[in-house]
């Protein structure tokens, strides 16, 4: 079939099978809950789990595919990488979070439906090849999360979090949309490929709208990825949201936005790198500095992790600054390690909350006596975020930082390493409570549920595995990044990024 401009359109619906499965599953969960009371409480998580597994299986058939759906959605390794990541996040959240959702969330079925639906949005953000589809993906994800954030039961903070998130999110979406429309005005198309072509051409007289558009786009996306100075919503939303939603915000929502960053700034916007690179460097610096400094003052573990994940976002924005195939693959590696680590941490804290109902840092006192297993998981997670060896964070940070140095931004990496050291200080505050202090009150041992052991155990194993054998993750990430950069733009990126620092070679030799 062809469209009215004569472009060939590939309408093979099978390419979108994973998303279709997820969307259908989402509807199914809601209907099941509404019309079949006998289904019981376990049905929603079970259906969600099976849906996610089915979607994962369906995604497996697209490994190494290079295809597109109706010129709107790319099906390549980059898409597949994120499909697996987001589906994996969903699966872990269902396993590790169902107990919490059952107890502490209004309308559990809605939570699961929104989980599936937002995953669809997230995947479209990673796979779109047209600005409109990408924007729809953003909105599907955001709207699902606006609701999910305020699902907490008997928690006044949930309402505040939801309202703050929806108001600021709306402003950000508006900015983003305005930016996109300016970009459309400059480039004359919403197709990524056409935009890249247009930006490489003659832009006489169009520079001002382009800069304005880029500024708005960076701001809008900066909000979604909670980059400083657009991060105000994040700590409140993280604190007020039910914990599985917080985990989701820090994993899938952040991952999808970074996927979009890579798609846009490594693709259609790459020719304008001279116009946005400095913006990105400034935002990355601010995010790393302020994320880490403000985290120092937190007392609530969710807020602490909110600021820590803001700072982590700053690390990843560095790689967007120097975007190239090398830094894109490094970013994906770090994102992978970060998602695994953060999930492990959040799920461990969810287990802790299930038992104790507390979430202040001081409440963790003596956890190494009352539940040594959870203490080990949380310690491994925090040390991994800080980049300590034998854990995922060491390897992924090492690769990420080296890639950014390779891209010519040694000074940015120095900021990052300093920030990383500061981060260890506040991570140690939690570890100190768990190991150095004695438990307050009841000091008897307690255990967590079987599903809690499974979820945290799998993730702990993954943290250690990536830490001592990172090659599989890096290889996969490299293939995903290759899908993003096959063709000419790579050379352009390396050429632009190189001259900033004398210490850096333009590109790794030895290939």
């Amino acid at each position, binding site marked *: 079939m062809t469209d009215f401009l004569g472009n060939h359109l590939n309408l093979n619906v099978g390419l979108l099978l994973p998303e279709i499965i997820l969307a259908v599953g989402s509807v199914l969960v809601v209907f099941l809950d509404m019309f079949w009371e006998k289904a019981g409480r376990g049905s929603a998580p079970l259906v969600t789990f099976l849906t996610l597994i089915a979607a994962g299986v369906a995604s497996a058939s697209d490994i190494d595919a290079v295809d597109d759906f109706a010129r709107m959605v790319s099906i390549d390794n980059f898409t597949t990488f994120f499909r697996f990541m987001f589906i994996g996040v969903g699966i872990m959240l269902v396993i590790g979070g169902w107990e919490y959702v059952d107890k502490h969330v209004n309308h559990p079925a809605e939570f699961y439906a929104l989980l599936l639906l937002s995953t669809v949005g997230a995947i479209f953000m990673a796979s779109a090849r047209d600005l409109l589809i990408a924007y729809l993906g953003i909105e599907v994800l955001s709207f699902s999360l606006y609701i999910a954030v305020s699902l907490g039961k008997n928690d006044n903070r949930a309402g505040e979090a939801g309202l703050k998130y929806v108001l600021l999110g709306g402003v950000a979406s508006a900015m983003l949309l305005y930016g996109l429309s300016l970009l459309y005005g400059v480039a004359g198309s919403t197709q990524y490929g056409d935009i890249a072509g247009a930006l490489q051409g003659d832009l006489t007289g169009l520079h001002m709208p382009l800069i304005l558009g880029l500024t708005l786009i960076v701001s809008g996306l900066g909000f979604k990825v909670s980059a400083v100075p657009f991060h105000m919503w994040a700590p409140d939303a993280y604190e007020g949201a039910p914990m599985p939603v917080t985990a989701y915000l820090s994993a899938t929502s952040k991952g999808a936005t970074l996927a979009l960053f890579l798609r846009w700034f490594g693709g259609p916007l790459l020719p304008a790198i001279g116009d946005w690179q400095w913006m990105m460097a400034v935002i990355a610096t601010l995010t790393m500095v302020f994320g880490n400094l403000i985290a120092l003052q937190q007392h609530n573990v969710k807020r602490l992790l909110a600021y820590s994940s803001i700072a982590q976002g700053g690390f990843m924005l560095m790689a967007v600054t120097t975007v190239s*195939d090398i830094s894109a693959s490094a970013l994906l590696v770090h994102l992978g390690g970060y998602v695994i680590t953060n999930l492990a941490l959040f799920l461990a804290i969810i287990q802790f909350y299930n038992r104790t109902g507390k979430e202040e840092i001081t409440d963790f006192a003596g956890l190494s006596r009352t539940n040594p297993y959870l203490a080990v998981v949380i310690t491994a997670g925090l040390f991994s975020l800080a980049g300590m060896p034998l854990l995922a964070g060491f390897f992924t940070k090492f690769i990420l930082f080296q890639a950014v140095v390779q891209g010519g931004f040694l000074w940015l990496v*120095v900021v990052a390493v300093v920030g990383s050291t500061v981060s260890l200080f506040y991570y140690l505050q939690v570890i100190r409570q768990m*190991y150095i202090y004695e438990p307050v009150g009841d000091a008897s041992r307690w255990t967590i549920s079987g599903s809690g052991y499974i979820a945290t155990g799998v993730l702990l194993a993954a943290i250690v595995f990536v830490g001592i054998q990172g090659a599989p993750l890096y290889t996969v990430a490299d293939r995903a990044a290759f899908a993003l950069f096959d063709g000419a733009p790579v050379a352009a990126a390396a050429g632009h990024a190189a001259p900033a620092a004398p210490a850096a070679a333009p590109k790794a030799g030895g290939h």
Partner: protein
Amino acid sequence: MTSADGYVLIALCLLPLGVALSLFLVPTRVRSITIFLTGTSSLVMMALSFYVFFKYAFHGEQFQGVLAWTWMQNVGLLGEKGIQFKVGVDGIGASLVLLTGVVVVPATWVTWKIQDRMKDYFILLYLVTAGVYGAFVILDLFFWFLFYEMALMPMYLLIGVWGSTRKEYGAMKLMMMLLAGSIFIFTVIFAVFSHVGAGTFDMVVLLDAHKDPGFQKVFFPLLVIGCGTLGAMFPFHSWSPDGHAAAPTSVSMLHAGVLMKVGAFGVVRLGYQMMPEGGAYWSPALIVLGAGAGLYGAISALRQTDMKLLMGFSSVSHMGYVFLGLGTFNAIGWSGAVLQMTAHGWMTALFFLLIGGMYDQSHNRDIPNFSGMAKQMPIWSIFFIFASMASLGLPGLSGFIAELHIFIGTFRSYPVVGGLAVLTAAITTTYLIRVLAQAFFGEMNPRWSHLKEITWMERAGAVVLALAMLTLGMWPSPWIERIAPSIINIPGITL
């Protein structure tokens, strides 16, 4: 050493790591299994360390026992060689492996005294041990840094949970300062990788690759700051007295005895061997810092009353000699520096072992509170006096031979500084004699009449360390023979 001996080097890194991991499975209540596992494995490590040291053929290649497995290649920014798990030692590495092997055994023995969570303690302690061995034998920058950080990571918990005086403060200060130091090392590693542009972290490739003199001059001082922090180099030393005062006995032994040498070793390996021109340019600065550290540490030690703080400042002073020796940039000063690493390692481990053995009973380390201890604890006192004699450089003991080399080297290059260094040695004598006079001789203080002699395990550990010190002092040629060829290989060094 043939490349098959590389398996021994690998065993040295992986054995403590394996013990640490398998201890996770040992039930906490059954102390005997933990004691058996750590006892045997530490002896095996010592045996392997001796093997490495004596098998290192000083007529052969610089790096021996080289073995490499590719860990990751041809992906992203990595080229053909990429990241390898590569081991191999030069003469300097071999002598430091031996240092570690000898310290680990007594450190293990004295740890068996600990009642509270001994198993967890050993897990962390053996992670440190693995990290230290790794830092001495790994020939790949990625893994070198991994093992380096692995040696630091457990310190916080070791000191914070099992420490004494102001343990939380000491632990946090130590951890944050050492990690601040590793910021610089991190930066240098990235910059070197990028600058060489070979897509590999292989140290041998990076050592041989051409690096601009300008690049070397910029990054050498950064590396010295980074590694110097761990080596307690003045003025980046302030974690060391507080950290050592707070740390439990075996951590102090391992940390002051071995881990600080990783810092100095980093200056040798990543600094001088990798950036010789930068090293030659900045050597005068090392002379100033080294001599300054020697004097500053010694003068500060004069005023200390806490025995561990005294030893902390004494360590700063003695590590100052190491950096002074490196700064001379001539062969004799360098062999002195490397000998001093070993000599100080054993000497300070013995000190901390003894102080710990006494502190466990008295819960007091204030020198003015003690007197006439030689009557109450004669064996303890003999060992303490022995260590003091080594520390102040009595001929025939380990400290003398090392300091002699350093002084000769310094007089060759910078006669005035040489004079200062000798003055430092005099001050060292003063503060040590003061301790001996005050605490060990004179009227016995009846307050301490309940103190018993140190335990048999502590005596055994002290004997091991004392024998090692005596051997190095009496018969240093095995060390010098192995160190010298590696030193001569450094481009631009004065003979």
